[in-house]
């Protein structure tokens, strides 16, 4: 097993990597890490293509571990190999670790502090807006009927019906990839 970055990756310094993941970690309220990472890594800095990023996101969701941490490991090691993965994951978890201990301390001493709760509630609302913006942006990229149906089926099964995610992905991801392979083969032959 090597610890080299991907051949296609642009050169990024470890200090830049650390500062980006620090900021994303602190901003990622309401489960919005992927949305903030997409903004930084794909849109602002062009470190990964949209397709690479989305494949990384799916892998991060299916593998064991917190999705934001898995995503950091993927992006960090894509850019800078093993050390990059470590730096990215540390940058992502470090600041929220400190914040949550401070909040826990405040909570233990004073119970809920109204102003703090209000700030957090506002930040969570913006975080969810970031996730929805990512979703709408991705939806615009889908031009064909089969990928649209796959995305809709996964949303309904996992989001609306709360069916377990792993079996759903294990059934639908191969169908989706199979259709792409078939389209590719058809494109080459015809």
């Amino acid at each position, binding site marked *: 097993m090597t610890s080299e970055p991907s051949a296609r990756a642009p050169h990024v310094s470890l200090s830049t990597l650390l500062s980006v993941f620090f900021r994303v970690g602190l901003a990622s309220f309401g489960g919005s890490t992927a949305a903030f990472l997409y903004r930084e890594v794909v849109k602002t800095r062009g470190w990964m293509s949209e397709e690479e990023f989305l494949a990384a996101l799916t*892998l991060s969701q299916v593998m*064991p571990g917190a999705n934001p941490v898995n995503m950091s490991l993927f992006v960090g090691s894509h850019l800078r190999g093993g050390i990059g993965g470590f730096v990215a994951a540390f940058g992502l*978890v470090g600041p929220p670790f400190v914040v949550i201990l401070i*909040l826990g301390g405040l909570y233990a001493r004073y119970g809920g502090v109204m*102003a703090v709760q209000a*700030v957090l509630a506002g930040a969570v609302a913006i975080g969810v807006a970031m996730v929805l913006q990512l979703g709408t942006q991705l939806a615009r990229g*889908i031009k064909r009927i089969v990928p*649209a149906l796959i*995305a*809709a089926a996964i949303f309904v099964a996992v989001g609306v019906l709360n069916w377990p995610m792993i079996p759903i992905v294990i059934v639908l991801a191969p169908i989706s990839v199979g259709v792409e392979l078939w389209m590719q083969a058809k494109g080459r032959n015809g």
Partner: protein
Amino acid sequence: MDSRLLGLVLVFAPLSLFSFGGGQAIIADMQVQVVNQGWLTPQQFAELFALSRAAPGPSTLIAALIGWQVAGFAGALVGTLSIYVPSSIVMYGAVRWWQSRGDSPWRAALQRGLAPVAMGLVFAGALTVLQAAQVSALQLVTTFVALGFLVFTKVGPYPLMIVAAIVFVALQYV
């Protein structure tokens, strides 16, 4: 090793390896074990979980709060490492495998095929957060107003967070 720290490792490290699909997959099991160990009551667990969902970062950072309850700062550190390190080693192996495949038509199809899967999961994740019992009408309205700004203007998320913080705090005192 302090037996309390060892206890944290023994509870969190196996949960880490079984957290397929992310942190939400193990929260119920975590609660059962943490309560059985006598570390927290179910009520305390629910309060800390609500806090970890309101705070930035992964909601599995509840492991830091539980560790703190059990053994102070060392407990918070050991709890956090135990919940993240085992799964990270597995994920790192998967990432290396993925990256070693190189460019191939097969990989291109894999990436294109996984994109709609990721998109479905992104919307499902947003819906799950919005369905949580603690989400208020004010938060829902804020989310959709902010979404309008993000989609139709060049305003970024950070100014929106500052405005939302000011509005939410102000409404506490009206």
